[in-house]
Every structure is written in structure tokens, then in C-alpha cells.
């Protein structure tokens, strides 16, 4: 629901207090909803903590990358001149970066020492001194973390806290509902959930996952309704019509449902797969599993060894919905390497999602910023952006992606490490696709920049940044959402295509395109499922993103004819864009 509300409040501080007041005046509906929310969070608390720890890991990775910059520059300088100058360069770059951080911090901070105390110097100087002091403090902290054991301790403590929190069993974790066990000689199952067969246990868990996700979505929708009925001041906003139009758009709803399922599959990948990727794909020789062998004995084997005998490669097939020789349940069969196909699909969804969101998020951010800046200032900055984007567009996109990807992969750049090139691919897509996004929203941005309310905002002294953010951005948000969702499908296809060619995501990170590539030799054999199922998934998800984009476009455009003609008058007056 955050998207629905993000543009309604122009001034968070202002609106939040009044929302709080409104809730305080009538707490009953909000309390009921909050209790339900707390309950839902509690059920899956461990998993949410897992996501948070993933995010913390990403932040750490970014910090590590930034921390590499000074020594990288310093070393280059040192090699070209003398080592002493190299060290100095390292320090200078470090301090510059830290000063930048301190500028950001002082800007974000609600108060400054320069305002509070009178140092007897001009305000600007005071502010500068304040930042210098903060830089020195930050430098001390950084040195403490980097050169003393303190850094390791802090990092270890953070990791420890999150790994403890994320190992709390949840409703859908493997520990609670396990589908990994073995047959017993008397025909039953041991080690599975309530002694059920692995198929049933897995089925229960999957039902729980999607049921839980459905409950969360329904609850969020209910939260929006509670807000609208009890706490929103206006009894009508243009967004109501948008929602109304979207609810009657069946093609868009189909897209939304599939996209939501794709998200849920990606986020709950460990729960949806019968076995985690860690155990089945990444380090298969570090785990053990028990099975009932042909002699009726319960035997232990590593998943890696087991996988060797469960390949679906034409001669040997473990098809969808069957057990392999090691009492493992394979809902979608196995891959040509003997690993579980559903595990690959679910974790592959995660990979696609990270790449897609990174590319769209970063590319969209660049595109929106550039479109606002160029529409507002026009002139030289506009021309420079046109030239830049034309340069990027003039190179065939796929060729450019391949070129950059090969350069970074072969150079073993640290960016190519996470997700076996997934993050790198996301960044490359952002770089290659932002000009396209910018072009799509350029028209609407130029249009909104000419609106009189933008002039009105300038005429009462609003700053350029705020004018762009408050009075222009909401009008292109719809366009970027539509184009973003359409492009996300394109990025999923491109990622798959690159991996199919062997240039994208390397093993062991699961990726759909590589599955298609690996299984394509067996399409005409009994192992047809290896390439077909991921292929169909790609088609389904990409179609769904396009459908969602269509639906969004029709919902946001008040003049779109979707049957709800009764409210076009009011919508046209308020919708704009």
C-alpha cells in the first residue's frame, strides 16, 4: 500500500502528526488492525529478520566497495609516482569521501550546532567547521573499525544477532514442517511432518506460504480501507478512481496476481522448494541425508553424491511429481545435473527479482531525476542529457550489455562477485536502459513543467528541488511505474537470454535462462521438463508484468475507457498527468 500513499502526503512531518492525532481521536479501528499486523509479523518473524540480515549484508558490501576506492586510487597513484604520494592520495580520497558523508549527515540532521551556538563566526563558516569536525570523528571511527580488532567484533556481533534472530523457526520453515525424511522398512515415513509423506508435507508448507502471503495482502488492503474510512480527511481522492478502474481491469488483475505470486515465490524461496539451495546446489557435499536403500537398510549419503544418480538427462529421468531413488520428493523433477528443479526455479525467481528491481530502481531513479532536471532547467543540461542518452541508445542494447558484462567478468571485478554476476548485471541493465526510460517520461515531464502550478510554486518561492519533487514528480510517477513494469519483463528475458548464452549468471547461482540452456538438448526426450518448465515460467512472468503494466496504464489514465464512465468527469478534473 505504500505506493498508494506515498504521494498523498506532501510533507511527511506535517501529515504524520495530524494522522497520529486522528488515530488518537479514534483508536479502535487502528488498534484492531495493528494487533492483526503484529500477529502476522510474529508468525514469520524469523524470516523477516533473515531479509533484514540480507539487507545488512548488502549495506556492508556497499561500504566495503566504497572503502576499496581510496586504496585503489592510492595504489594506482603510488605505482605511477612514489609510494609516499600513493599513501597521501589514499588518505586524501578517504577524507574526501568521509567529508561527503558528513555533509549528507549534517543535511539530514534536524538541527546544527551552527544554529544553536554562536561561535562568533559567520554561519557558513560555522557550518563548514562543523562538517570538518564531523569528518575527523568519522575518520577516527573508520580507523578504529579498520585497523583494530574492534571492527571484527562489531561486524561479528551484528552478524551474530541477525543469524540468531533469523534462525527462529517460523510457520513456513523447514524445521516446523519438514519434508525431508526417509521411508521406513514397514512402509511409513520417518523425519517428515507428522509422519506424512514428503509430498504431503511439502504441499502443506506451500499452501501455508501462499495462504500466509494472501493473508498479508488482504490485511494490507484492509488497512488501506481502515485508513480511508476512518482516518483520511478527504472523502474522495483521485486515487480512489484509479483503484476502482484497476479493480475492473481483469487482464491487469491477472498480471497483478501472477506478479505477486512471483514475488512470494522469490521471497519465500527456501520454503517453497523441497530443499534449500544451500544443501542441494551450493554445498551439496557438506550435508547428509538418509534414505532406505534397496536392501531395506537406512543409509546415509551426501546430496552431492545422490545428485549424480538423479540426473534428468534423457537416459535417466526424474520427472515432475515423483520421488527419486533417495526418497527425495521432486515436485517439478530434477535438472540435468540431478539437482531439484523447483529449488532452481524458486531461487532463480529471487535472482531475477534482484536483478530486475536493481536495474529498474537505479535506472528509474536516474531517468526520473534527469527528466525532472532537464524539464525544469531546459537549455544546456537538456542538450547534454540528450547527447548522452543518444550515445548509449545508438549502441545495440544487448551488444552493450554483453560487452560490459564480459569486461567486468573477465577482469574479476569485485562487482562481479555477488550472485555470481547478478548484481553486476543489474547495474549494467540500469546503465543501458535508463535512456529508454528517460525518453518515455521526457514528454510528460516537459508537459508538467509547463503547467501553471509549477510557475505558481516558483512564484511563491519554492526551491527548485522541492518544486520538482512535489509538483512535477507525482505526474510522471504513473508513467515510470507503467514503463518500469513493462521493462522488468524485458530484463527478465534479457537475463535469461544472457545466461542461455553463458554470459550472464554463472553457476551455482540458480537462474532460469541457464536451466533452459542446460535442458534444451533433452526437450525431445523423457527429460523434456528441464527446459520446458523454466521456459514456461519466463513466458508467464513476462506476460504478467506486461499485463500489469497495461492495467496500471489504464487505471492511472482517467480518460481510459474501462467501463467506469460515470466518474470520468471528476477524474479528469483531478487526475491530471
Amino acid at each position, binding site marked *: 500500500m505504500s505506493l498508494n500513499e506515498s*504521494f498523498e502526503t*506532501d*510533507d511527511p*512531518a*506535517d501529515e504524520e*502528526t*495530524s494522522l497520529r492525532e486522528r488515530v488518537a481521536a479514534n483508536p479502535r479501528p487502528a488498534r484492531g488492525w495493528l494487533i492483526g499486523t503484529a500477529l502476522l509479523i510474529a508468525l514469520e518473524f524469523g524470516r523477516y529478520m533473515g531479509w533484514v540480515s540480507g539487507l545488512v549484508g548488502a549495506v556492508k558490501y556497499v561500504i566495503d566497495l566504497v572503502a576499496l576506492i581510496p586504496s585503489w586510487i592510492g595504489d594506482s597513484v603510488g605505482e605511477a609516482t612514489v609510494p609516499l604520494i600513493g599513501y597521501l592520495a589514499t588518505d586524501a580520497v578517504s577524507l574526501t569521501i568521509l567529508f561527503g558523508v558528513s555533509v549528507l549527515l549534517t543535511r539530514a540532521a534536524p538541527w546544527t550546532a551552527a544554529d544553536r551556538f554562536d561561535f562568533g563566526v559567520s554561519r557558513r563558516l560555522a557550518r563548514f567547521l562543523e562538517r570538518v569536525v564531523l569528518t575527523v570523528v568519522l575518520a577516527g571511527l573508520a580507523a578504529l573499525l579498520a585497523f583494530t580488532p574492534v571492527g571484527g567484533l562489531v561486524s561479528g556481533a551484528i552478524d551474530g544477532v541477525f543469524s540468531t534472530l533469523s534462525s527462529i523457526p517460523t510457520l513456513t520453515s523447514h524445521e516446523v514442517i519438514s519434508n525431508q525424511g526417509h521411508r521406513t522398512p514397514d512402509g511409513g515415513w520417518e523425519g517428515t511432518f507428522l509422519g506424512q509423506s514428503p509430498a504431503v508435507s511439502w504441499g502443506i508448507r506451500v499452501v501455508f506460504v501462499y495462504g500466509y502471503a494472501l493473508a498479508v495482502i488482504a490485511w494490507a488492503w484492509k488497512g488501506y480501507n481502515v485508513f480511508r474510512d476512518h482516518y483520511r*480527511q*478527504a472523502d*474522495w*481522492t*483521485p486515487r480512489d478512481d484509479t483503484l476502482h478502474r484497476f479493480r475492473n481491469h481483469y487482464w491487469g488483475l491477472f498480471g497483478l496476481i501472477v506478479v505477486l505470486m512471483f514475488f512470494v515465490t522469490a521471497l519465500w524461496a527456501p520454503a517453497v522448494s523441497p530443499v534449500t539451495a544451500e544443501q542441494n546446489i551450493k554445498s551439496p557435499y557438506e550435508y547428509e541425508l538418509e534414505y532406505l536403500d534397496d536392501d531395506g537398510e537406512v543409509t546415509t549419503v551426501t546430496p552431492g553424491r545422490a545428485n549424480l544418480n538423479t540426473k534428468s538427462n534423457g537416459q535417466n529421468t526424474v520427472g515432475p511429481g515423483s520421488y527419486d531413488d533417495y526418497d527425495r520428493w521432486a515436485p517439478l523433477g530434477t535438472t540435468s545435473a540431478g539437482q531439484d528443479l523447483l529449488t532452481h526455479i524458486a531461487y532463480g525467481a529471487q535472482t531475477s527479482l534482484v536483478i530486475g528491481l536493481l536495474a529498474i530502481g537505479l535506472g528509474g531513479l536516474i531517468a526520473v531525476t534527469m527528466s525532472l532536471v532537464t524539464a525544469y*532547467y*531546459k*537549455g544546456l543540461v537538456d542538450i547534454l542529457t540528450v547527447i548522452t542518452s543518444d550515445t548509449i541508445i545508438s549502441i545495440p542494447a544487448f551488444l552493450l550489455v554483453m560487452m560490459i558484462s564480459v569486461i567486468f567478468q573477465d577482469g574479476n571485478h569485485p562487482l562481479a562477485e555477488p550472485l555470481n554476476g547478478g548484481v553486476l548485471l543489474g547495474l549494467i541493465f540500469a546503465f543501458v536502459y535508463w535512456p529508454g526510460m528517460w525518453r518515455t517520461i521526457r514528454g510528460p515531464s516537459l508537459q508538467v513543467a509547463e*503547467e*501553471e*502550478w509549477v*510557475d*505558481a*510554486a*516558483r*512564484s*511563491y*518561492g*519554492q*526551491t527548485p528541488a522541492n518544486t520538482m519533487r*512535489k*509538483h512535477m514528480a*507525482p505526474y510522471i510517477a504513473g508513467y515510470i511505474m507503467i514503463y518500469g513494469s513493462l521493462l522488468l519483463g524485458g530484463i527478465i528475458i534479457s537475463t535469461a537470454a544472457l545466461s542461455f548464452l553463458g554470459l550472464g549468471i554463472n553457476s551455482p547461482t540458480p537462474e532460469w535462462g541457464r536451466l533452459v540452456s542446460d535442458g534444451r538438448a533433452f526437450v525431445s526426450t523423457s527429460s523434456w521438463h528441464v527446459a520446458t518448465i523454466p521456459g514456461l515460467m519466463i513466458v508467464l512472468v513476462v506476460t504478467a508484468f506486461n499485463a500489469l503494466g497495461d492495467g496500471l496504464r489504464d487505471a492511472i489514465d482517467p480518460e481510459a475507457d474501462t467501463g467506469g464512465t460515470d466518474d470520468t468527469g*471528476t477524474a479528469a*478534473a*483531478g*487526475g*491530471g498527468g
Partner: protein
Amino acid sequence: MSTDPTAEPILDVRNLQTTFFTEKETIRAVDDVSFDIRPGETVGVVGESGSGKSVTARSIMGLVDSPGRTLQGSSVRFTHLETVRDYASKFPDRTVDIDALRADYDPVALFGRDAIEITPTAFGYERAASVPLEDVLAAGYGEELGLVDDDPAVLVTEGSIDSPTDITDGFVELTHLGGKAQRLMRGGRIAMVFQDPLTSLNPVYTVGNQIKEALRLHQGLRGEAATREAAELLEAVGIPDARRRVGEYPHQFSGGMQQRAVIAMALACEPEVLICDEPTTALDVTIQAQILDLLADLQEERDLAMLFITHDMGVIAEVADRVNVMYAGEVVETADVNALFADPSHPYTRGLLQSIPGRQPGDRLQTIEGNVPTPNKPATSCRFAPRCPKAFDECDAVHPVSVPVDGDGDDHTAACLLSPEHLSTDEAIARHRRRNAKRNGGDTE
């Protein structure tokens, strides 16, 4: 609406030139326009579409977009003393003390060695020696002449910049403002009401929200205090049930109420000058009358100086104290409102007056044939000549300058070769020629 004609003007526009440099041509949308506004006074600017009225207003606000630019030589002075003191203390880097610079200034030498392509006449003086330093600085020549490092935004003529509260005379030069200084001026000192109330309110925010935005920028009001102030403002502009209306969206307001809300927004920060760019054009006649009454009341209450732009002579007759008639980027006639309507001098003004329904004999409405030309060349002839019923040969050869219509008074001027009226046509033409020649440099009689 009576004002003291001897009062000091609060806004003084001199030689304003705003030009759009498009790829195809150079359009002199505002070409050498001068007028001033005194506190409590309403100055009307009237003319057809394309005559440069709105660009004049936008140039004052600094809202001219690329590829448009206000040229060097233009000066828009804001002489409100409190503002000058405030700016002098807030922006000491951009303030200059005229007295301190006077030692380096020798106008005769400056104009004598042709350091700048401008003659003393362009500043309105006969001889170089009488051109004051502040005029040169305000017109943006200070940097070129090596008098200052940076075009100053605040010029203090009497008083010291070291103690801003003691300044007794000076002005803020609006064409040199930028960044924060400009933002403080916009809304806080000079506010603007746009033509179409429906589009000048952002449809996605509530009306109260937009008024609060302005309040927050200039008065630092937030939360409940801002909401209360916004409601009071809406009440002040005659919106009933203001407390509830604050939370409503623009589309829930009628056209007249929207314009009232826009006026409330403009007044939110208690400006000294209000620029109204055709504020009643998008409204029907009854609402128009209400809005005009409202503006008149507000002006009386707050002693506002108003610049009122319209193409409707009827509206001008009602609101303005003095009127500037604009045509193709130039002011062709300036007069007191009564004098203008009783005794229009310029043929264009007469044409405009005749085209008011009900003021002419006969069944057909008289119109001025043709359209306003695009002023894309420097004026070397009368721009109105092709449409003028009284045009004669010299009109295509001599550019008329503003001269007093009768005798010497500056109250009623017209830029027409037929003026001054007491001279014969030949004498008048000779005078226009002389003034042009002086202006463009060269001979000084």
C-alpha cells in the same frame, strides 16, 4: 483607490528588455519597457495577446524560462526600505555601498571612452556627467567597467552597509537576484496571481496544503498553526466555512473560489507587491466583479501595490489608477486611467477603446484589423504602422519614442509620430528622429 502621486515608487522598472533566443529567430518580447508602481496604487498593463504583458510580469518575478533572458541594461528596482535593510543584512556579499564606490566613478570618462555600448540617453539623461552610479550598476554594467566584481543585488544609496538597520535609501535589483535571495523575494515580497485558477492549483494536493507550503517557506509555520493561518486566509478572501475548505481539493472548489484560493496563496506571505496576470480572464462576468472587489478591498487593507495585467479595457477602467498600453513589446501609451479613457492619444489605444462593445456608433463592432506582429527585429519603424488607420510614410522610417502628449508633463506619454500633439507633424517627427539618434549613440546635436 487614490494614491499620493508624489510618493516614492516601490517598484521601478527601467528599460526592461527580455528577449527569447530561439533557433529560428530572436524575439524581443519585451523591448525597452519602463514604468513604476507606488504603494497602494494599481498600475494596469493592457494590450492584445502577444504584446508582451505576461513576459513583463514574469521578468519582474524572474520567471522567464530558457531560451528567454532579461538583457543587460534592464533594471527592476524594489525600493521597499524594510526589504533593503533585510537583504543587506542577509546577503552582505551581494550588497554594495554606492558612496564607497563613488570615488572610482567618473561617468564622463566612462561614456567618453565607449567602454560600453550604451549612451547616457538610454539611462534617461542628456549628458554623461549626470548619469548616477547606481543606474550603471543596476543596469548590470558594473562588472564590465571594473567597478564591482559581481553584479550587486542590493544597492545602498544612503546609509552604511555595516549597520543595515540604519539604511535610509537604496533598492534591491531584481534582475540580479538568484538562488535564495530570489526565492525570498518571490512570494515573500512580490507575489503573483496567474490567469487560470484551475491550473495554478496543483490538483493532487488540498488547497490548504498549498497555502501551507507558502506559509512554511516564508513564515516557518507548520502543523496546526499553519492550518489555522491557512483557514484565516481563506476566510479573508471570502470563502465560507474555511476550516472545512482547507482540507478540500481544488476540483471541489468552483472557479471563483479557486481564484480566491489562489489569491489567498499569493497573500499568504504578506507581499508588498501583487502581480495579477489576467486574474479574471478565465472567470465569468459576475465572478469577475466579485474578484475585482475582493482585490480592491485587499489592496486597501494591506496597502498593496498592484500590477494588473489584462486585455479587457473594461476591467482596466475599474481597477487601475494608471495604465500602460503595450504593443509588440513596447509601451505605446501611458496615462492616468481617466485621461486615457477621456483622451486617448495613440491610435492603438483608440482602437482598443473602440472595440469595447457598446462604445461605438453603428451596428458593427469596430476592430483593429490584423494581428500583433512578432517583434523579432530591433525597432526601426513604428511596429503598429501596418495596422494603423493614421499611418503615413514616415511611420515606416522613424521609430517613435515615448514623448509627452501635451507640453512637458510626464503624466501622459505616447510613442507615436503624431505626438506631441501641440507640435506640427514635421516638428514632431524631427523630435522623434533626434531622440532616436541620441539613443543609438553618435551625434549629440
